[in-house]
């Protein structure tokens, strides 16, 4: 098999493979950005406290806590990334209750247990002033489990379980406080102060208070996910309803198909036979790029789709360059095959240099941009790289295959959109 035929076979196999990837939504799902499927994009910033300054180690634990809480909401494939020195980017696609998720992520939820000093019996003194509660060493970090459950009194409560250290501490605290209350505080708010009826040694307890199903659930998640070492503040929020983006996508896809058809028609009308070849390469290009988007996977956003459509227009550029060069050579009286070869060869340096600058721009956009800008840069860059392959290698192989298989009829320069002077026609044929 000649190298050219082998290449053609590779192209056919690649295209079939890509088509398989495209139609198989289960194994290779298309990843849509938040602007398309709806969802929430949050940037949270860690704030220094008097005791704790934000360091890389602190940020690590902040991210771990945020991740735990996000996981508890059951959102699929969340994005949780550190950005800069003290920011966390959270992207939740298709989240149903964005307001609740916002509430959940930023809460510090530091659970502490407080007891009364020895000798003091009740939290309220006769004069009505608060007695000094004393903080015990037991805190939320020693929890192994927290879950919301209906309380026997009606309403909801949170059942908690401690690790061995916590169980031991809780045993000691409950033993020395029988008949006295123990206060449970979340951050700086007292959630409840149940009276201890007897020593609790198993390491299990309930937090009661005025909870409904939702708030109990949320507190349980916060407790189980641990407490944030420093407070987080929202600095950027974007929530997009799903219907908004889907309308845009439908419109963009229609626009893309129309754009593709217009370009294809133009190429066919202007460049004839090579135009047809360029159109086939372009179709293969679109199929390959889309398959790559699904394989990597690239998150498709509205500007990302625009970048993809724009890259169709740019992908044709290489073919335009080559065919213009081929036409020039044909006009100068060169034979068909050598004109094509020279066309491909001479066009290469300009294709290489011009696409390098586009890739350079993409790299800079990707580096400095975030979110949507990155999506655009990435899709455009993939498009440029794939177009180098399809516009040069694939269209060359196709053109030769057509000329070899098409018999004598196709070999006239007329099919290349060239009108030849009498003398040159003789030379060319």
């Amino acid at each position: 098999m000649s190298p050219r035929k082998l290449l053609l076979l590779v192209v056919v196999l690649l295209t079939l493979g890509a088509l398989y990837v495209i139609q198989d939504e289960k194994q290779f799902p298309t990843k849509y950005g938040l602007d398309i499927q709806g969802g929430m994009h949050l940037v949270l910033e860690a704030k220094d406290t008097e005791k704790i300054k934000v360091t890389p180690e602190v940020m690590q634990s902040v991210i771990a806590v945020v991740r735990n809480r996000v996981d508890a909401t059951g959102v699929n494939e969340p994005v949780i990334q550190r950005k800069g020195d003290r920011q966390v980017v959270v992207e939740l696609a298709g989240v149903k209750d964005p307001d609740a998720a916002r509430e959940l992520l930023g809460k510090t939820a530091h659970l502490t247990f407080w007891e009364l000093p020895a000798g003091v019996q009740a939290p309220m003194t006769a004069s009505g002033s608060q007695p000094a509660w004393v903080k015990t060493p037991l805190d939320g970090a020693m929890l192994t489990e927290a879950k919301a459950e209906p309380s026997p009194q009606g309403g909801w409560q949170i059942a908690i379980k401690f690790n061995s250290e916590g169980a031991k501490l809780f045993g000691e605290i409950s033993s020395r406080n029988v008949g006295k209350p123990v206060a449970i505080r979340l951050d700086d708010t007292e959630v409840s102060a149940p009276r201890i009826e007897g020593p609790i040694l198993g390491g299990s307890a309930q937090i009661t208070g005025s909870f409904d199903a939702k708030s109990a659930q949320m507190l349980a998640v916060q407790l189980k996910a641990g407490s944030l070492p420093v407070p987080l503040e929202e600095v950027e929020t974007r929530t997009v309803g799903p219907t908004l983006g889907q309308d845009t996508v439908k419109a963009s896809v229609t626009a893309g198909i129309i754009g593709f058809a217009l370009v294809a028609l133009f190429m066919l009308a202007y460049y004839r036979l090579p135009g047809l070849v360029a159109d086939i390469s372009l179709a293969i290009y679109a199929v390959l790029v889309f398959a790559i988007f699904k394989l990597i996977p690239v998150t498709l956003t509205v500007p990302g789709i625009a970048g993809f459509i724009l890259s169709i227009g740019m992908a044709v550029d290489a073919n335009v360059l080559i065919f213009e060069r081929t036409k020039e050579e044909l006009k100068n009286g060169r034979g068909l095959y050598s004109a094509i070869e020279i066309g491909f060869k001479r066009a290469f340096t300009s294709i290489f240099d011009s696409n390098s600058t586009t890739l350079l721009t993409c790299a800079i956009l990707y580096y400095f941009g975030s979110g949507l800008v990155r999506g655009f840069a990435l899709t455009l860059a993939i498009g440029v790289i794939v177009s180098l392959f399809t516009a040069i290698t694939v269209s060359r192989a196709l053109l030769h295959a057509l000329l070899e298989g098409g018999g004598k009829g196709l070999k006239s320069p007329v099919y290349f959109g060239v009108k030849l002077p009498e003398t040159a026609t003789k030379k060319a044929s």
Partner: protein
Amino acid sequence: MATNENIQTEKHALDVMGHKGLWFGVSIAILIPCIIAIAICFQRFGAPVKLGIDFTGGTLMEVTFDQPEKIEAVRGVFEKQAIEPHITAATDEKTFSIRTPYLDKDKSLSLKEDLRKVGSFNEPHFRLESVGPTIGKELLRNAAMALGFGILGILLYITFRYQFDFALSAIIAMVHDGVIMLGTFAIFSLVLGAEADGLLVVAILTIMGFSVHDTIVIFDRFRENLKFAKKGDTFGQIANASVNQTLARSINTSLTLVLTLLPLVILGGHTIFFFTLTMLIGVVIGAYSSIFNAGPILVLLRERGNKPNGAQTAAKTTA
């Protein structure tokens, strides 16, 4: 090389180099209103275009009620909290865009609750964007950095692959395109109230990249023709021939881009309308500057650079 046999007598469709003044004049005629618009924007908004919340920080809410509602009712919700909103209503009086200074989480959530009291709306249609002021500054800084590094990178690349004055000419043509795109957007800001977001930066940088892409193809032809230049060929003649030889390609490539962008502008929806429209304008301007500015500027630089036989020196150094 057959094409270079008679470069001095070759007839060309366009005498690009001979009418340098005309092309520069056209560019200046387009640049002037753009620069005026940018200046007015600077005076009015303190920036070359009206900046959206992406840059300034702020909160944008978009709500679609089930029934048409009075804009006064929506405004009242915000004014009750002493917030001065900027509200635009869709013609059906159901959809409202509300822009306010930056609102923190608690405030925006409580305002959303208050909006529910105005009328019922569907959660999936609600859009909220809140950008803190520091994030906006960061984006502005990143945009400036991207622009700076982009220009530097392209300058280095072309200098490395070609020569410094090639790079300089391409960059001047590219900056020309950037200023016109920014100026066009400034006019949109003044006339249509368009606000710049991160996508405008993307559009301008992409088109600047495309402009250079286009220029390089023409310069590649310069480089090739210079190699085969004969004694007596002036740099201007070579440049003229090169531009003409690549003219069909320049036009066709820009045309295919216009063909792909035009449907996006018409059908793409309002979120990317200004993004695609700015790119469309940029493609046309980029094609113009590549053909009519980049080459003539290079010729001007060579002639000024006291190289009467510029072709020969260039041929030696680039070959």
